[in-house]
């Protein structure tokens, strides 16, 4: 495999409801910033891949407008995944591995506030046997949380502590939309939204966009003083139907982690895409992350949850920790699908 490094990352200042800008207008400054910081002129970037879903925009071919934001003229080598931006990053990494290109731009965007996100995500379920029951994303996460409680693997207290930690850490993240000091006892007095989930265990509906430029080792060393190296990246999938899974574990996360190289451990921080607080317990177990690993210093998805972007943002936030010198080795995780169905793990390191 070729060495590949992250050269730059940019994201929007997230918002609960983007009132003025459309997707192209959200993307343009983010793409410009990522490209400019990469040190590679836009027209020399070898490949571009984006991640998004038509079901947030409410129209077919919604990714086509993003081509306008990239400035695809002269025509570019480009692809799109109907997946979180983390998988767009994966396709970029694959393209560099083929040797056809030496650099690539991954980006993603989503305006979840235009619809009722939990209900929109219901449209992601098996249309014949599951969707007609209309379980929304929050209800499915509540089932998973209940399974954790029943298995004696976690507690509501632990989830409130995760939420309080996330909001506290988010105070240092200017892009987060939910932040502050929360009292765990007070959080536990909140009413249930979907038992056993309270509001603080749920991700905020968030609009945003993010972009990242990566390059093969020789190019990265030439243009960047501080490339962040992608030491491993892998993704795996669990069955779709919640009824055939043990919801208290995530075999796909464990396998992706193993393939990416989590076995060596040594992580200073981990950015985990657990949209619902209880899922962090499952991910930590699957990835073998002990108490010594700081989880979600950015505040994580409980502080900002731009749908289709949050996975790429975990990689970006982990890279930022390395750029700032706060971490030498970091893990970033991304997920999509009901109850952590599909998972991607990236391992990052400083030089």
């Amino acid at each position: 495999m070729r060495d590949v490094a992250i050269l730059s990352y940019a994201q929007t200042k997230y918002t609960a409801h983007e009132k003025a800008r459309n997707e192209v207008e959200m993307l343009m400054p983010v793409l410009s910033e990522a490209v400019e910081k990469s040190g590679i002129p836009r027209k020399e970037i070898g490949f571009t891949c984006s991640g998004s879903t038509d079901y947030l925009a409410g129209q077919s071919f919604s990714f086509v407008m993003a081509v306008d934001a990239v400035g695809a003229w002269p025509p570019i080598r480009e692809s799109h995944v109907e997946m979180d931006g983390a998988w767009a990053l994966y396709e970029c990494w694959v393209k560099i591995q083929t040797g056809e290109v030496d650099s690539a731009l991954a980006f993603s965007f989503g305006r979840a506030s235009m619809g009722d996100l939990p209900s929109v995500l219901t449209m992601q379920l098996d249309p014949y046997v599951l969707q007609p029951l209309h379980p929304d994303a929050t209800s499915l996460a509540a089932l998973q949380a209940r399974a954790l409680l029943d298995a004696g693997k976690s507690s509501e207290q632990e989830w409130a502590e995760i939420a309080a930690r996330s909001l506290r850490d988010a105070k240092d993240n200017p892009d987060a939309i939910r932040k502050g000091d929360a009292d765990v006892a007070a959080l536990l007095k909140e009413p249930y939204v979907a038992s056993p989930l309270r509001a603080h265990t749920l991700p905020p509906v968030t609009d945003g966009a993010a972009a990242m430029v990566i390059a093969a080792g020789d190019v990265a060393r030439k243009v960047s003083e501080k490339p962040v190296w992608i030491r491993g990246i892998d993704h795996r999938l669990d069955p779709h139907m919640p009824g055939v899974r043990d919801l208290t574990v995530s075999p796909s996360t464990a396998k992706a982690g193993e393939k990416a190289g989590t076995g060596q451990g040594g992580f200073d921080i981990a950015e985990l895409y657990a949209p619902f607080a209880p899922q962090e317990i499952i991910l930590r177990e699957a990835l073998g992350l002990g108490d010594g690993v700081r989880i979600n210093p950015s505040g994580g998805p409980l502080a900002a949850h731009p749908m289709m972007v949050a996975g790429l943002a975990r990689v970006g936030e982990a890279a930022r920790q390395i750029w700032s010198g706060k971490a030498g080795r970091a893990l970033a995780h991304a997920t999509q699908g009901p109850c952590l169905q599909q998972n991607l793990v990236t391992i990052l390191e400083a030089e």
Partner: protein
Amino acid sequence: MAELCGVVGIGQTKHDAKRLDVSQVGLVREAALRALEDAQLTWSDIDAVVIGKAPDLFEGVMMPELFLADALGCAGKPMLRVHTAGSVGGSTAVVAASLVQAGIHDRVLTVAYEKQSESNAMWALSIKIPFSATVVAGAGGYFAPLIRGYMMRSGAPDDTGIRVALKDRLNALKNPNAHLKFPDIDFDQIQGSPMLWDPIRFLETCPSSDGACALVLSSEKLAEQAATKPAWVHATAMRSEPTSFAGRDQVNPQAGKDCAAELYKKAGITRPREEIDCAEIYVPFSWFEPMWMENLGFAEEGTGWKMTYEGATALDGDLPVNMSGGVLSSNPIGASGMLRFAEAAMQVRGQAGEHQVAGAKKALGHAYGGGSQYFSMWIVGDEKP
């Protein structure tokens, strides 16, 4: 640097207007099982799965690959979902091939599908978004003016499109999987069919189909050991450009020309018309055959129609085009691009049955999408590149 990649299994469904006998699950499994059977492999032989389809609104399921994954043996494996508009079937195969070429996986299953009968593509393409222009006319209304532009530029005879449609509809009679089959089709029937979007007549138009296509791709070592003769991937290429800007040539788009140029360069082809034995290209409306003949460099600009007129693109011509009957005869949109790629591979493997081009050694597969702005292509050969 890249590893070689071979197509070792090809499968497709019987395409039809409404495959009411199967769900989306049954449809993709039908194609995947046929590809595995062709390769004499089973689910456990597959390392990763790449799924492609056109807009999710075409079935009304958001990211349907997540629920289809169970039926395609994806559990515990990497699964990617590609969507690049109408070119997606081709792009999906290109992404799957890149996983092998990068040396990441030895055997990849790729599946593309559309089950248009479960929603309404015209509706899905015509949603009015506030503050943005919409054609509210589906694809035909969008492409008709481009065809007019081509007719004016080239001075092509008005019946060129009818001749393309007749050829493709006759070819479809030789393809057991084709959706539309008109056993007694002739020039007059096509000419007399209703004008839908002037100059596109009903019988010069693609149908809405349910269908799927699947390919099994292998690394060089495994392809050499394959049960049946592989089709070797000589080159792949993709290009995109914005939908509209002042001066954009939508009739003969730069992205298509650039894509073909990169493809030929990678495949070591300098004279495409002589070196390529047959081409299966994305022609959803008959006139796009001459337009793409020029865009792909098979004919000088303004002369693509002559290839149709002189019979060069017929099954017994010097460059047979759309041997399967093409998109005009079967159009499960998300799969349509992969069906083109699959037909090219079938030709060089000599498994195209009645629509086989004798002695085909190098074949082109082509797909396009969006407003003639997304392109994906591959060249496959009977021998290693």
